[in-house]
């Protein structure tokens, strides 16, 4: 039974016909809620951010001291500060997951092209949020990282570069830089993000959640209250609980305050979400004027990704029927992860071109080969049930003793060569001959392991004699 208040609200706002309408059953799946979780993270950031605003002073001589005051003196200030940091990490991670999940099930296809474009812009704004917020505590590492990103603006064309630099950071004084970043972080970016969010939510109300890329398109409708509400409340609470728990267990420790001397002996590294780009900038070819190519290349890849719905115009959405785009996406993720880990382990070291080329090409090749084998295997076994296939394939080597031993030898060979490659990366010294041997051993062991698995699977299913 509805109360009078609920009836009054419904007749004025009409929420049940729009936002609170029933949703299809398939959308009660965490993958459909990654965007919603990102919004929850944003609300959490706004809340903790407002709390910190009470104490934080955005001037070059007070920024660090007031941040330290929040952490040390304000009751639970350390928790607020840490939740704001981990909330930012979670928001960025969720935004990435949301995007890649959308990529693999092609949500960006007709009629949701503009949702993808707006979503990509929102993702970029989230990254700029990270960049601008990073400077505010005025620590030695955040100041250096910020100077690097401002430095990159100087490579833009002369009509735009100086103007943009002036708007973002002033003409070179620390005070101007800090106050502009503060304004961007707490006024400009939230406003822009909210406007984009409203536009995107409007489009979401028009188009609804994308159907699953495979399986039945028609689904039972689930009422918004109480089912969907409780589901949302549940995953939302779990998310907030995870952020709170992580913050309580691992409170942040603030690096030292920025001074030029401290900066010159500190090894500055950007936050993890910019490490991949940091690593690209350290490739020997992108030294000096070569930075144009690095910046240009990343801009082109980004532009292609933003315009993806207008490039990939096919109507198939199932990842299994889009080998080219699925493999490209997997390679992109693998390269991002590789560059991030690699950048983390080689702070301040220039990477020789050959080494960079070997690693980049190797990662792409391994992923492409694994992807190609998987697609071939699938096409050979079309019509066979695939449920639990992964588990059964994993169990196969252990039911054939001879093959198991060969498999084990291959596994050890592959692991040793992989360890060799990773090790030489971590120390920054690579011997090109040893690297190529490692590379060949790694590839061939992968190849033979994949062949063994494939033959065993096919034999098990009676597809081969």
């Amino acid at each position, binding site marked *: 039974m509805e109360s009078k208040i609920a009836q009054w609200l419904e007749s004025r706002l009409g929420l049940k016909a729009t936002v609170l309408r029933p949703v299809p059953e398939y959308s009660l799946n965490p993958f459909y809620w990654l965007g919603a979780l990102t919004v929850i993270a944003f609300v959490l950031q706004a809340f903790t951010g407002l709390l910190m605003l009470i104490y934080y002073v955005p001037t070059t001589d007070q920024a660090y001291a007031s941040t330290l005051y929040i952490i040390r003196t304000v009751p639970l200030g350390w928790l607020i500060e840490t939740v704001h940091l981990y909330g930012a990490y979670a928001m960025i991670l969720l935004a990435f997951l949301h995007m890649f999940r959308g990529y693999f099930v092609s949500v960006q296809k007709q009629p949701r092209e503009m949702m993808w474009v707006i979503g990509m812009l929102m993702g970029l704004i989230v990254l700029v949020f990270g960049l601008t917020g990073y400077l505010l505590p005025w620590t030695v590492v955040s100041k250096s990282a910020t100077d690097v990103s*401002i*430095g*990159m603006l100087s490579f833009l064309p002369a009509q735009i570069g100086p103007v943009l630099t002036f708007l973002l950071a002033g003409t070179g*004084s620390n005070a101007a830089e800090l106050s502009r970043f503060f304004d961007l972080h707490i006024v400009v970016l939230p406003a822009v993000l909210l406007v984009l969010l409203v536009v995107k939510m409007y489009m979401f109300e028009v188009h609804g959640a994308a159907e699953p890329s495979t399986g039945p398109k028609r689904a039972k409708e689930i009422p918004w209250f109480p089912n969907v509400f409780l589901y949302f409340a549940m995953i939302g609470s779990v998310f907030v609980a995870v952020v709170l728990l992580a913050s309580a267990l691992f409170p942040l420790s603030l690096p030292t305050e920025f001074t030029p*001397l401290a900066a010159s002996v500190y*090894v500055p590294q950007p936050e993890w979400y910019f490490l991949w780009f940091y690593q690209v900038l350290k490739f020997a070819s992108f030294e*000096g004027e070569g930075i144009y190519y690095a910046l240009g290349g990343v801009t082109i890849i980004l532009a292609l990704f933003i315009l993806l719905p207008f490039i990939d115009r096919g109507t198939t959405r199932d990842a299994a029927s889009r080998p080219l785009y699925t493999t490209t996406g997997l390679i992109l993720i693998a390269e991002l992860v590789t560059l991030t880990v690699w950048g983390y382990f080689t702070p301040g070291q220039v990477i020789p071109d050959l080494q960079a080329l070997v690693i980049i090409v190797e990662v792409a090749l391994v992923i492409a080969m694994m992807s190609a084998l998987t697609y071939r295997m699938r096409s050979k076994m079309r019509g066979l049930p695939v449920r639990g296939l992964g588990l059964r394939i994993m169990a196969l080597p252990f039911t054939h003793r001879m093959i198991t031993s060969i498999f084990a030898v291959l596994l050890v060979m592959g692991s040793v060569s992989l360890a060799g490659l990773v090790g030489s990366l971590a120390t920054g010294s690579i011997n090109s001959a040893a690297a190529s041997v490692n590379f060949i051993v790694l590839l061939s062991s992968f190849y033979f392991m994949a062949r063994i698995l494939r033959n065993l699977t096919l034999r098990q299913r009676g597809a081969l004699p």
Partner: protein
Amino acid sequence: MAPRRLQRDDLAEIGKSKRDFLKIILAFGGLATLGSIASTLRILGFIPPPTQGASTQALAWPRIKLVNVAAIDSSKPLRFNYPLVDTPNVLLKVGRKAENGVGPESDIVAYSDVCQHLGCFYGVLSSGASPPCNSSYKARGMEGYCCCHGGQFDLVNGAKVIGGPPPRPVPAVMLEYDKNTGDIYAIGMGPPTIFGHGPPGTTDPALVLRHDLEGGEIVTEATAFARTQ
């Protein structure tokens, strides 16, 4: 008198003038669009305010007393702000005759601490020392090593780039040595512009002076060593 009913010819006449009107509006609209694009590009250039002091007084490098020769500690660089409070530099006694060197042995040099690659602050290594970010690297002389992206400068030979990504040497601080008192003064900055001030790599002395002094507070003897440690 009853109004005359419109005839077919009248309608065609009205249609024609409507089309002409639309054409004229479109032409003006197109011109206005082109004009606004051009003027936007022009206006963008006015967003940064004119350089401070350019209109009121002639720009000149400040002259700042840094240190007495007798007080220089050759084991560790002296850090000072010049020409603005936010542009740090290092002063070194390199131990042998150096390019840009002053003093009795011409071995005292000073360079901007801001790397020309992307604006990080580099650290100074004595011969044989390793930077904190790369233990396998050993300096072959007095070197600057930037831990952001691995830039290396030979501080004995005019801050020549000997490794890493910087596209050009860091600018030297022009020093003056007073033989009578032994005092060392900073009297200007050599080309190019300090990174972050004006277009990178500008070498025209008038532009270097203008860009290096813009956007901040010019140092005095009181602020030359503020917040450098």
